[in-house]
């Protein structure tokens, strides 16, 4: 079946439409609620997928992901509170437009640009992913281990300073260590199970993710409330989104196109993601625009750039997941877990063994981005009403959904205890600026790295030089090393410059 056939299959399936709209609506709502990120939104939708088949479950997940990344802009524009981290640059001009009485126009710009960025990245994903999958078919175990290392090193390189990078590196190693629990794949000897049969098959991803993302956030919110640090939301009634005119859009064409490419490129890079994409594109738009000096005072381009880029990064982030089976971000790590629930291993073979599934996911994501315009226009008023909900209702619902999500997957109460344990661990990690997303990535990629590295060493008769001297492996390891060391070199260079 070719892509047109798959598109027709998805487009003529009413249930797929229902799931796309449900996922999109839930994603926008979760994204709009401060404290619920796109990752957490996708985690909270997990229990809804348990009774669906793989295709419909993944369509629901990608629609939630797309909606979640856009949703953060609503509160960013209306209340100066980014609903998600990637919406932070949207506050710079979006909220200023609201203060000037142009909230509707800012919301409309965010909707159109998010939809364009998302749809553009999905089209590029459809073009790039199959070609990359063909190349990846020639990858050996060492190449896979090197690509996964690159992903982890890029995550470890994130942060605002060397201290943050070390904390992220420690978070990654914590995830890698968790992945070693259970039977060793090579020798079959149990590791760190402490005699418990429950751990023989390893630590399950889903309860860890639910605990570390959703449960920990509720604890953080309780702390903020007790310290009176919760952000006040002052409601503005009667705001409706107003689409920008074609002339206005045409005047921003280069900013939008450039931001779409920036978002796509940064999205593909493992470890980088929507937040970096939106900051970089805002900076680039400010630098290159004729109106650059007006950025920060409430200009449409200041909303268009980050909103195009952060949604363009969603399609980019799906490329390494679908072609290599390596998630580039916390959210795509959760989507990888959904693939694994159904016994499907994403990677280059997926395009030949299960093309209908892959292309259905791509078509579903494309449709979700197009529907975002209608959903966003019609839904703004409704989503703002949801923001009036008291947090005790939201927090309690999140915890109950988390319990259902942890238990429902395997009908096992031990999974709910794992959820509780990682709710506490995740809370302390967030509190002390460790990266929960890095922990999850380490957990998801741990087995892949270990098994491939050991296989490669066995094939090369335990010779490190034999493994590293493959041209592709060597290149990937050098890039990994540079990604790890670069933050320290850049700090050193900037100090030298200052002197």
């Amino acid at each position, binding site marked *: 079946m070719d892509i047109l056939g798959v598109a027709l299959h998805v487009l003529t399936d009413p249930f797929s439409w229902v799931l796309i709209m449900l996922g999109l609506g839930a994603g926008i709502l979760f994204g709009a609620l401060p404290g619920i990120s796109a990752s957490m939104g996708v985690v909270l939708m997990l229990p809804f997928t348990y009774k669906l088949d793989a295709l419909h479950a993944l369509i629901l997940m990608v629609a939630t992901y797309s909606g979640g990344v856009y949703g953060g802009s609503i509160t960013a524009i209306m209340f100066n509170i980014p609903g998600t981290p990637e919406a932070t640059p949207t506050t710079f001009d979006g909220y200023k437009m609201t203060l000037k009485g142009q909230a509707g126009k800012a919301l409309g710009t965010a909707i159109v640009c998010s939809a364009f960025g998302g749809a553009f990245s999905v089209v590029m994903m459809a073009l790039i992913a199959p070609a990359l999958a063909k190349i990846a078919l020639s990858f050996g175990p060492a190449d896979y281990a090197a690509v996964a290392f690159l992903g982890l090193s890029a995550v470890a390189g994130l942060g605002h300073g060397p201290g943050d990078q070390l904390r992220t590196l*420690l978070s990654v190693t914590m995830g890698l*260590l968790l992945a*070693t629990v259970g039977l060793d794949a090579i020798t079959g000897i149990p590791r760190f199970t402490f005699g418990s049969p429950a751990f023989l098959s390893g630590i399950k991803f889903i309860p860890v993710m639910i605990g570390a993302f959703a449960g920990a956030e509720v604890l953080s919110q309780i702390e903020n409330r007790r310290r009176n640090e919760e952000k006040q939301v002052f409601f503005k009634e009667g705001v409706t989104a107003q689409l920008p005119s074609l002339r206005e859009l045409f005047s921003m064409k280069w900013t939008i196109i450039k931001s779409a490419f920036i978002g796509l490129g940064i999205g593909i890079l493992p470890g980088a993601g929507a937040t970096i994409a939106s900051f970089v594109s805002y900076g680039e738009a400010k630098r290159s625009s004729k109106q650059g000096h007006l950025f920060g005072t409430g200009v449409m381009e200041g909303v268009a750039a980050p909103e195009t880029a952060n949604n363009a990064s969603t399609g980019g982030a799906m490329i390494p997941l679908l072609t290599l089976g390596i998630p580039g971000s916390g959210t795509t790590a959760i989507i990888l877990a959904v693939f694994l629930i159904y016994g499907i291993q994403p990677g280059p073979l997926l395009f030949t063994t299960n093309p209908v599934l892959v292309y259905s996911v791509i078509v579903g994501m494309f449709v979700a981005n197009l529907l975002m315009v209608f959903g966003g226009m019609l839904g703004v008023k409704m989503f703002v009403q949801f923001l009036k909900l008291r947090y*005790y209702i939201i927090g309690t619902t999140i915890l109950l959904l988390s319990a*259902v999500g942890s*238990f429902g997957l395997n009908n096992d*109460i031990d999974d709910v205890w794992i959820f509780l344990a990682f*709710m506490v661990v995740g809370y302390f990690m967030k509190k002390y600026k460790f990266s929960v997303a890095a922990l999850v990535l380490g957990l998801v990629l741990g087995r892949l790295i270990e098994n491939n590295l*050991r296989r490669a060493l066995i094939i090369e008769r335990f010779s490190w030089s034999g493994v590293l001297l493959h041209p592709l492996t060597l290149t990937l390891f050098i890039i990994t090393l540079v990604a790890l060391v670069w933050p320290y070199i850049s700090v050193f260079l900037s100090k030298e410059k200052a002197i």
Partner: protein
Amino acid sequence: MYGELVFEVVVLVVAIFLYVVSMKMQVINPIPVMRPNWWPQIILTIMMIVDTVLIYGSLKKVRNRRGRVEHVGFGVWGWLLAEVINVAVFIVLQGVVGFLLSAFVFASVSAFIIDGGFRKSHPLVSVGVAFAITVFFGSLLGLPLPRGTGVLREFSYLLY
């Protein structure tokens, strides 16, 4: 600041403990790569090095701020501990009274903890949320939910 230091020290202690455990793992083949503890020991070594550097940085910060009184909100920790215990009780209770009743009790206590006080709307909202989630996931989606024991188990079949 002290909390950060304590967290890092706990991570280091756990890493050292696991390293000791890894040394006692059964080894069949003496070649390093073929040992089950080869990869965990590499990770644990990196963890210990990185964590030691972080602890050193935190100690320096603590020393620089010596003499300044740090406000420690014991009340906040109490609320957080209460929520963690609430979740633990919820997990235990599910096996005894089933999901619906335990969810109602959990939601009521959780609403009180999150709000930091009692509101008249808490019980009503708790019943609503517990009932809605039970019916939606247990009955409509057919997800397995704990049923409890005895009479309550039999009653649960009427709803989900």
